[in-house]
């Protein structure tokens, strides 16, 4: 591409502008979805059993004066929409309210939990991409026996829920082989990674199976295309044809599935953190639900949904980057 840069083109610039416009549209749509989702969550949690004021007051729950004071302080005496307005304004200013159970700012509570979860998702995501892609590629290029063997393994991995994988891995690697610690998050980066290895593998396993399947199908499909014949007919060497024509084009379907997989990873952290006793956002959510700490549930849910939406939007943008045909006008 380097050689044609001088001649590059108005048309290319227009395409990137189209990508940006599409991105802005996507952002607006995301904001709307988030607004609707946050309102739903807020209203739903208002209906949840247990009165936060009673919980806060503990055994002084009958004190009418204290109830009135707290209601005023937290705007509980105002209409639903006003309360929602207060909450969402606070949210935009980074004020997520106070946890009545943990007696701490929700924002600092969540902030303390984010590193573990972020590291877990990044570690798991990396494993998914490498493991899934390599397995799929090997499966597509290998002979029949290897291909069938891998396919069987993939089917099993795909049908095994995360928590079962966790149990099996803990049993084998922590209990019998004693290679990895069972619980906790570890200290220092290396310690953390060591503690996070089993959880990350657990998180990654069925997702990599999904990626591997799509990779295999996409590579096999792409190998049969006419443009691959053209590339061979022009005397390009096999590695170049594989890289620039087969894998490069197979990236399109792989990217599509990556969005779903990444979203699955984020949701999967809830299970994995609980199975391995990690102090991440997912386990915070479950603790908050069990202890009826609705302020924490609200904010954590919004965080998870935001991550979910952002990942999907990023994948859509990435798709525009790797498929030139979707850049202008988005017809495909």
């Amino acid at each position, binding site marked *: 591409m380097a050689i044609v840069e001088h001649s590059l083109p108005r048309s290319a610039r227009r395409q990137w502008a189209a990508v940006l416009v599409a991105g802005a549209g996507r952002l607006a749509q995301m904001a709307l*979805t988030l607004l609707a*989702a946050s309102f*739903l969550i807020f209203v*739903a*949690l208002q*209906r*949840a*059993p247990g009165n936060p004021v009673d919980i806060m007051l503990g055994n002084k729950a009958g004190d009418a004066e204290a109830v009135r004071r707290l209601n005023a302080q937290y705007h509980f005496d105002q209409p639903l929409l006003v309360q929602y307005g207060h909450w969402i304004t606070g949210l935009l200013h980074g004020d997520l309210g106070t946890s009545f159970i943990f007696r701490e700012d929700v924002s600092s509570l969540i902030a303390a939990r984010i590193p573990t979860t972020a590291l877990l998702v990044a570690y798991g995501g990396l494993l998914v991409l490498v493991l899934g892609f390599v397995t799929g590629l090997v499966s597509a290029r290998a002979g029949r026996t290897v291909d*069938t063997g891998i*396919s*069987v393994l*993939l*089917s*099993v991995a*795909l*049908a*095994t*829920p*995360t*928590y*079962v994988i966790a*149990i*099996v891995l*803990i*049993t084998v690697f922590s*209990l019998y082989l004693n290679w990895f610690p*069972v*619980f906790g998050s570890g200290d220092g980066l290396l310690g953390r990674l060591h503690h996070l290895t089993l959880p990350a593998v657990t998180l990654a396993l*069925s*997702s990599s*199976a*999904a990626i591997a*399947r*799509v990779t*295999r*199908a996409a590579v096999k499909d792409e190998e049969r295309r006419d443009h691959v014949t053209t590339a061979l007919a022009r005397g390009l060497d096999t590695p170049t044809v594989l890289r620039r024509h087969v894998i490069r084009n197979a990236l399109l379907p792989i990217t599509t*599935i990556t969005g*779903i*997989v990444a*979203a*699955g990873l*984020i*949701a*999967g952290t*809830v*299970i994995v953190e*609980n*199975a391995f006793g990690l102090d991440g956002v997912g386990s915070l*959510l*479950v603790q908050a*639900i*069990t202890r*009826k700490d*609705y302020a924490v*549930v609200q904010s954590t*849910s919004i965080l*998870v*949904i935001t991550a*979910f*939406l952002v990942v999907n939007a990023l994948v859509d943008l990435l798709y525009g980057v790797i498929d030139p045909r979707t850049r202008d006008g988005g017809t495909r």
Partner: protein
Amino acid sequence: MSALVPARTGPLRGSGGGATVAIRCFGAFAVLLVLLPLCAPLIAPADPNAGDVLSVLQPPSSQHWLGTDASGRDLFSRLVFGSRTALLGPLVVVLIATSVGTALGVLAAWNRGWVDSLIGRLFDLVFSFPSMLLALLFVTVMSPGLFSAALAVSIAFVPAIGRLVRSTALREVNEPYVQALYTQGFGPVRLCVRHVLPNLWPVIVAQVTMSFGYAMVELAGISFLGLGVQDPTADWGAMINTGQGSIVRGFPQESLYSGIVLVLAVVCFLSLGDLLSERRDGGRR
């Protein structure tokens, strides 16, 4: 979690006669699975809830075929009885999600325009919640238990079924014969129920079978988090959870056995759904 990943290239993919044999095998296994909760009292050798502090965490023996759990309860009996909630939950999910999803899908296909786009928006909104989060929020609002978990998972599953039904129904509604009947004065409800719906059956049956498998995964996951079926009741997902405590003490069997049973059941339903939808696609081509 991978509910959206269509499995088309599995090793179980057969063609022609092979597919039918495979469908029969998985079908027979599914029937056995459905019979299990009904005949549980006949099969289980012991009361699943009768604990015995003197025989805690026992290895398999002639008295306890799979050993006992941390409360001294017979694991085999608990597994057998656990099938009740493990299958009842997905049944509720499939019933609710399919009926609501089908109704909305047909409605959207029949009334193009604002009804269609409203339903589409609704599906988008539900899709923006990871299904596990949706389930957790539901459980929070309604208090933990099998029913609220099942209701939540049902709602999470509606969009997938609704979209599938909508696209299939759209094809059907545009068929000349439906248009012809419509012009002859047949009412829309009668047309949908008598002519459009029967043609959707193959699609719906395949989707239902697969959803059943995925619902099992989700529901057991909620129970695993301690927010679904609660402890004394035997349930595969809940048993994986309660058994966790014994793993570090060197007794992984409770979690392991219930996990294995769960995976077997899930694989059965997913493969069955996969094969059915493949046969359907093959028939259309």
